[in-house]
């Protein structure tokens, strides 16, 4: 009897608590890359406003499918929608709201963990299998002070479909015509050579196990795990150390109003060239299905918070915050969200 009454008391408290806050619970799903950031943001948001937000990191592909199927309030994706995907909801367009930026770095297993300099040609050459050993003159020429061994280069890539792979192959397709023709860009591609590891830990694990291995991982993962990574020459000709600042700087020039743009191989002077946005996807008109106005309002407010107050959590978790121009564009997009044709936020 005692147990039963205790449970009843707990239930009563929970119900009352829920009723007092009268909160809307929002549901999102998608990209795994921003999941740690979103978890932190939504946790803070819940304690500040009482609005619960549930985000499931199931991958960008899953996020896109779920928002198209209208089973979630918002989707998360690392790759902006293709025209074909946008055409699947012609009457009620999906909007892209950038929330953070990330970068992909080239990591390797070399004695002494040197910080190597790499050009786009060298990176493409390594991942195409054209540069086969570490003492190739194309690498040593860029790194005169570094003692490079004659070990064969073992390429490690992601085995799972991933936004990280998309960003990396998108970059290689832009800087190397050879790559574009032979491999191309995608969340999963037909790799010319190498081994696959699952997730950032899988790639990093294989790289760390094998002398002379090279792979690509997210900047935040590399930093957290103290992995060495390469300094990459950008389009302006500067060698850029990947950092939160240089990633933020990669977004700058010629942003379209809908923010659907790839910023790899950026033309900004100090931007790190293998950077990318991650977006949240929502419908422009929120009065669909049986949705209530209160839910639409909660969603719009959440998006505003994420692109403003929420941004201060980005740097802590090693994501780059949105820079000025992008923030202004995000504001405009959030303000264009409507309920029954009426803008939700003024």
């Amino acid at each position, binding site marked *: 009897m005692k147990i039963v009454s205790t449970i009843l008391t707990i239930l009563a408290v929970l119900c009352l608590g829920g009723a007092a806050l009268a909160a809307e619970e929002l549901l999102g799903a998608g990209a795994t890359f921003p999941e740690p950031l979103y978890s932190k943001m939504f946790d803070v948001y819940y304690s500040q406003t009482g609005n619960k937000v549930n985000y499931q990191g199931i991958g960008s*592909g899953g996020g896109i499918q779920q928002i198209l199927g209208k089973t979630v309030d918002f989707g998360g994706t690392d790759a902006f929608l293709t025209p074909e995907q946008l055409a699947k909801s012609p009457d009620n367009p999906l909007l892209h709201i950038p929330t953070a930026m990330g970068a992909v770095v080239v990591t390797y297993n070399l004695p002494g963990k040197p910080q190597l300099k790499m050009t786009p040609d060298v990176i493409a050459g390594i991942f195409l299998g054209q540069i086969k050993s570490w003492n190739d003159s194309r690498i040593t020429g860029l790194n005169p002070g570094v003692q490079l061994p004659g070990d064969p280069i073992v390429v490690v890539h992601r085995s799972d479909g991933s936004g990280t792979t998309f960003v990396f192959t998108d970059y290689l397709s832009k800087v190397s015509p050879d790559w574009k023709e032979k491999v191309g860009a995608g969340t*999963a591609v037909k790799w010319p050579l190498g081994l696959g590891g699952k997730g950032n830990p899988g790639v990093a694990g294989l790289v760390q*196990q094998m002398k002379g291995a090279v792979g690509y991982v997210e900047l935040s993962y590399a930093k957290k795990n103290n992995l060495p990574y390469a300094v990459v020459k950008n389009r302006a000709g500067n060698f850029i150390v990947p950092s939160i600042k240089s990633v933020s700087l990669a977004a700058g020039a010629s942003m379209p109003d809908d923010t659907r743009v790839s910023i790899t191989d950026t033309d900004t002077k100090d931007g790190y060239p293998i950077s990318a946005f991650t977006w949240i996807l929502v419908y422009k008109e929120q009065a669909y299905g049986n949705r209530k106005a209160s839910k639409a309002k909660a969603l719009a407010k959440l998006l505003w918070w994420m692109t403003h107050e929420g941004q201060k959590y980005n740097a802590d978790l090693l994501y780059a915050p949105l820079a000025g121009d992008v923030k202004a564009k995000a504001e405009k997009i959030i303000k264009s969200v409507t309920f029954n044709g009426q803008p939700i936020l003024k």
Partner: protein
Amino acid sequence: MRRERLFRNLLQLAAWLVGLNVLVISITLFWGASPTLRHFGPGFLWSSHWNPVTDEFGALPFLAGTLATSFLALALSLPLSLSMAILLGEFLRGRWLSNVFKSLVDLIAAVPSVIFGYWGLMVLVPWVREVEMQLMPLGQRLGIEIMPYGVGVLTASLVLAVMIIPNTASIAREVLELVPRDLKEAAYSFGATRYEVVRSVIVPYARSGIFAGVLLSLGRALGETMAVTMVIGNTNEMPANLFAPANTMASVIANELAEATTAIHYSSLVAVGLVLFLVTTGINFIGTYIIKKMTVQA
């Protein structure tokens, strides 16, 4: 009487639900795979191109990877699991040591596959890499390219071999214990040695049961995902040799499904699932037929 009927109906309902389940799964798989089957036709089975960028898909590398690792694992584990079963079921029968071994074997079955994957990655992979380095010069002379990756078909098979030992060993031990005592005693009374009894009486009598255990382990090996993914190298190409990295059907689905953004990519992964389903079902049917043929008519 009404209670009796109710009970019977309840049992029937449960049985139908289970049967229906298999049917629904196969229909779902066919349905999901149909865009791929229509687009690529039977060529999906023997094309070795898997390129999500150009939307070309073929299941052959994964089919080869699954069959190669599973049968190799079976070949590697069979001598061990059978020896174990004969030792426990005949020689140590009823002794305390038998119970110790039995618990140890059952413990293998209880270890989650991700732990096996981790063990493979941390312990087995460096070993295999050492062996591969020793074999490299020999490979060069024979014209076989061996790269000291450590991960690949061989490593995956070794991990699988350990994982499937309990499936064969437990069932084989149980059927060996079921061999009628009078048969064995008759053999002994003719002056047969222990080895001769095992070879000519016990194993032939129990062979259909042993084979059922083998089938069960094969089923586990064919479908194993996590442990294999961690040590096979995940290369979507036909494996060139034992030491080459490859990929299996279960593993490519687990890897690529979450981020399959185009409809045809998604459908092709479902089609790979369908192939896996058909292969497993096919092997089971053949197995059941063989068991029937092998059963000793008493």
